[in-house]
């Protein structure tokens, strides 16, 4: 039982990290980035290619994170400019469709060029015993990274001027403009941040098992579920939702069975939308 819950928390932190990048972009102007999973995969492929050239893992990971951030900025400067000219539901819908198109382009090109591409980062080290439960070193590292990222993000949004500027755009775009915040610059920065987070997801996901080239759609789906359950635009909500869903996932996988588990997760998302459309911590 204790092992199952700990497993769930490890998985949940990974879910949370996955959801954060999507929730930030949504909070900042109502765009759900459906290409998010494909950007994660892109980072993974870049890292694996750089590692093949004999570059140290840490350096390769950095290159991957930068590449993902670069692609995200490129998306923002090209497609998203047209999207942000729209307002309300029109904007959300157009964002949804354009990022879906981008997902096809990125995913299709990657699968076409690297059909067997995959990233696996082997974390050496003895299993660590936590509360008497042995945990794989890779999972421990992935969880530490996720916690650190969550902490840094909360600090960034809570205590820095730029973080407050971002929150002002989230709350009221026109108001933010009136007090001298440039929403379009803020959005570009957040897109870059979201891309970098996608790169970090690629690293942590591949620490516990290989991340294959066709994982994009599944990653996007889970990110979407976490985002919706946690509350669109809320960093803490994404992590809370991630951990809750992670624990639900491993409990039901352990006691009921794997195939029902996915349905339970999906059901949890649907029920959250119906009972509390703003999500756990959404405004």
């Amino acid at each position, binding site marked *: 039982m204790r092992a199952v819950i700990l497993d769930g928390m490890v998985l949940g932190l990974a879910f949370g990290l996955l959801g954060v990048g999507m929730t930030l972009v949504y909070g900042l102007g109502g765009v759900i980035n459906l290409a998010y999973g494909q950007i994660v995969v892109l980072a993974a492929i870049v890292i694996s290619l750089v590692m093949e050239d004999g570059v140290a893992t840490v350096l390769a990971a950095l290159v991957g994170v930068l590449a993902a951030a670069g692609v995200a900025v490129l998306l923002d400067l090209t497609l998203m400019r047209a999207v942000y000219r729209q307002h309300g*539901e029109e904007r959300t819908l157009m964002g949804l*469709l354009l990022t879906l198109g981008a997902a096809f382009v990125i995913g299709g*090109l990657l699968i076409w060029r690297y059909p067997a591409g995959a990233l696996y980062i082997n974390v050496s080290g003895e299993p660590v015993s936590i509360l008497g439960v042995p945990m794989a070193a890779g999972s421990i590292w992935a969880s530490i990274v996720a916690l650190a990222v969550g902490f840094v993000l909360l600090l960034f949004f809570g205590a820095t001027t730029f973080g407050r500027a971002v929150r002002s755009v989230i709350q009221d775009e026109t108001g933010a403009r009136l007090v001298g915040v440039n929403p379009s610059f803020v959005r570009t920065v957040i897109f870059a941040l979201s891309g970098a987070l996608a790169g970090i997801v690629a690293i942590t996901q591949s620490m516990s098992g290989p991340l294959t080239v066709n994982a994009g759609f599944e990653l996007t789906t889970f990110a979407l579920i976490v985002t919706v359950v946690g509350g669109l635009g809320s960093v803490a909500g994404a992590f809370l939702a991630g951990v809750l869903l992670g624990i639900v996932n491993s409990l039901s996988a352990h006691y009921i069975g794997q195939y029902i588990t996915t349905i339970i997760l*999906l059901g949890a*998302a649907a029920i959250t*939308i119906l009972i509390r459309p703003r999500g756990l911590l959404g405004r």
Partner: protein
Amino acid sequence: MANTESLRLGRIGWGFLPIVVTAAILAVLPSVWFGDSPYTTSLAVQALVFASYGVGFNLIFGSTNQLFLCVGALAGVGGYGAAILTDQTSLPMAAGVIVGTASAAIVGGLLSWVSVRRSLGIIFTGIVTLVFSLAFANLLLGQRELTGSETGLIVTGVPSDLGDDRVGGYYLFAGLLVAFLIVFRTLQHSHFGWAFRGLRDNEVAAELAGVNVSRYRIYAATIGSAMIGLTGALLAYSAGFISPTTYSFDRVDVRVLVFVAFGGLGTLLGPVIGAGVFAVLDEQLTASLELREVLYGVFVIAIFLGFRRGVVHAVVALFDRLVGSRRRAQPDLQPSRE
């Protein structure tokens, strides 16, 4: 008075002209184009199936703004419902088709009822229906005894002249598509069409003008889902074999969304034109599935950046500009004559 009445009837008659033309083209297409080539026939059947899905989706999304990302799942409810019924009992195909269609209509109506009751916007309706799609796909994989999981299900009780590579299947789906188009246009000309236009242009204003927006939404979703379910059920019998991929999200929903948007949301012939264009595109791009996906992506981006309201609207706008002076003169003349 009689004059305006005949004018109105005349306009309704003209409204059905595109359907007559489509029906005529579909009727002669086999003899002038693909004849007895099984490969081309199966491509044409596939295009017709997708066009039929498209009309249903267009009724739900194009007319009442409900983003149903579960076209594949609804078709699957129809298809698997029908196939499982004829597999488990010895009932004939007709019973399977009726049960499959009714199940899809009920599921679609319920999804719409839930999203209307909780007043979910486009996005949340999209997410709820997407979640339903994924859950349905998982259910298909899990219920091994009933659905055969990934290996699929051989559909029993199929009439012998309905095979996928025969022209019989082609005419079945051509007839189905024409029937759907007639239903769609009839709805547009009835009080439904008036409500649809109202709630698409300005929902609040429509509500204030006395249009029961929620009820029309649920009606549209139920009828559209019945269309999708009926198509899915007939596809199951025509193909003789179904598997989760027949109705999967990435095979059905993504395509339907793309080509209906390409053709023109809310237009009568948008789904037909879109399905036709994408069928030709598929035939040209048989070499690489991945590159086809890339091209789809480019298409989607181009459509929504460029002519966002679809081919039909673009052509109508061009036509208006070409013959603009004459067409614009007419409405000015008419009131003064009466």
